[in-house]
């Protein structure tokens, strides 16, 4: 695992905020994805069985990450699922970033899963994807 996740305490009083630091932009995407999955449920308690392949592209990597994280929240509600993992690859083709990912999870089950917050959405508040000296940082505030 080439990223670190830190949940931020005083950024959003009523909500959840996290910051991810990673050695590459792809790892930053993975770390932010993991932080979002963990915000909704403990992934270790979620089995498989539900899968959805997602492909997205954008010239702007920050916009792409925002839309991808929003996709995860959308499927949580639309399919009534929580997630075990979401393997992804991120590549750059000419001027566009291409994300290929798979959401893997299961229908919500209070009895077997450790459920956390019902995340309503990803917000633009303090939202950032930046690179400094080869280190990528993502900051996300989730509305819960």
């Amino acid at each position, binding site marked *: 695992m080439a990223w670190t996740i830190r949940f931020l305490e005083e950024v959003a009083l*009523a909500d959840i905020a996290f910051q991810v630091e990673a050695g590459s932009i792809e790892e930053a995407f993975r770390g932010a994805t993991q932080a979002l999955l963990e915000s909704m449920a403990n992934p270790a308690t979620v089995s498989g069985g539900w899968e959805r392949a997602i492909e997205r592209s954008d010239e702007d990597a920050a916009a792409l990450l925002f839309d991808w994280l929003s996709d995860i929240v*959308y499927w949580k*509600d639309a399919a*009534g*699922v929580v997630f075990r993992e979401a393997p992804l690859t991120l590549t750059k083709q000419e001027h566009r970033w291409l994300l290929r990912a798979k959401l893997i999870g299961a229908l919500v089950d209070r009895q077997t899963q*450790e459920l*956390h917050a019902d995340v309503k959405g990803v917000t633009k508040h303090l939202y950032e994807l930046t690179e400094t000296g080869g280190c990528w940082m993502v900051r996300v505030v989730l509305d819960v």
Partner: protein
Amino acid sequence: MNLNTDMTVNRITDEIWEIPISEKPGMLVPARIYATRNILQSMDSGVFDQVTNVACLPGIVRYALCMPDGHWGYGFPIGGVAAFDVQQGVISPGGVGYDINCGMRLIRTDLTLADVQPRLERLMTELFRKVPAGVGASGFVRVSQEDFGRVMTHGAGWCVERGYGWHRDLARMEEGGCIDGADPSVVTEHAIQRGINQLGTLGSGNHYLEVQVVSNDRIFDPVTAAALGITGHEQIVVMVHCGSRGFGHQVASDYLKKFEKAMRRYGIGVKDQQLACAPFRSPEGQDYFSAMNCAANTAFANRQVITHQVREVFSTVFGQSAEALGMELVYDVAHNIAKVERYPEGDLVVHRKGATRAFGPGSPGLPEPFRLTGQPVICGGSMETGSYLLVGTDRAVRDTFGSTMHGAGRTMSRAQAKRTVRGDLLQQQMKEHGILVKAVSMSGLAEEAGLAYKNISEVVESVDRAGITRKVLELRPIGNIKG
């Protein structure tokens, strides 16, 4: 005075504080905060920054306001109220909140604590089973896309048509549980698919269903309380706090994105991206208003379906029909909404975000049952401390665009609350104090501990003393369902 801001904050009265327009470039009107000195001192810096950002929005009228339960929010502070001229002003999803028509509903009963206490465990277990809560929960009402369109346009009325409620319920809801001007054609398929299975679900976070008791010594205005169907004597009531769920959030997210582009076209600059807005009369502004009304109506319907389930559970547990148990609606009020209302300045788009409408007696637009009392204002406190029922006043109409507070307001982050309290221990402690809690998530429970909130009694006192709402009674929790 020690405040979490460097701005000048002038005392107008002991409960009203004003930040002049000189404090931030671009402010068009002063910002006013309703709070006691003590509450003002405890407010986070975000409140001062955000309420003055709101004061910079085009077409704002009179003041940007923040209520005493105010705290940092997205764009607008929670507790924020602002009114914009319908011709020159804007509409902003950030001024409504992501959870469109998040609101409160109070249901009375003829039951007393003595009736309920012996069956409380069974009652809460059944409520927990019948009212889905927490992440990914779906409701028991299965609707087609066509039906969901009717939910968007008819709100709680759709539920009553389908047998999920009584016709007289509708007279006891803000706007009769259905706001005109909802147009499903401006709602994305994404939003519909996100919300179509969520009718009758609570959600999580600070949303809850609570069984409460009203004691005689906590009724401050017995005449008004009686007019609202509450006579005390350890009377049992049920409070519901939830909104439009994923559907409303998707509507807000979709239009925030559209407005970011629209602002460039209309040459509007904002201090915070989450204040994205569009002229109210523009096609984008009107589309958002129509979509927001769809979400608002869906929230009324959501609380109506939950009410139906609550009545069913009470009926089963106590072996009598809900009607025989006197389970009438006291009121249903929105606290995240934008509405066009008439004030001396003309027709205004009043944004209330974490703020409640508080029309006084005789106000046009109030349902018949409340013409003499003023509009009920239901304020939820933390699950440990209790809640309040208040009524609106003429002064609120004059001073705050008919608006007041909505709840206690957080003072501690979710992470800090979880570090301070353990969910399972909190559940045990609350049980020892006579409050039975059923929660989907123990960490979610810890996040909602009473210590994470302001003292609601002090918040209520400040709006009562400011004259923008009048307190009627206090409600004490005995059972709580949390997502």
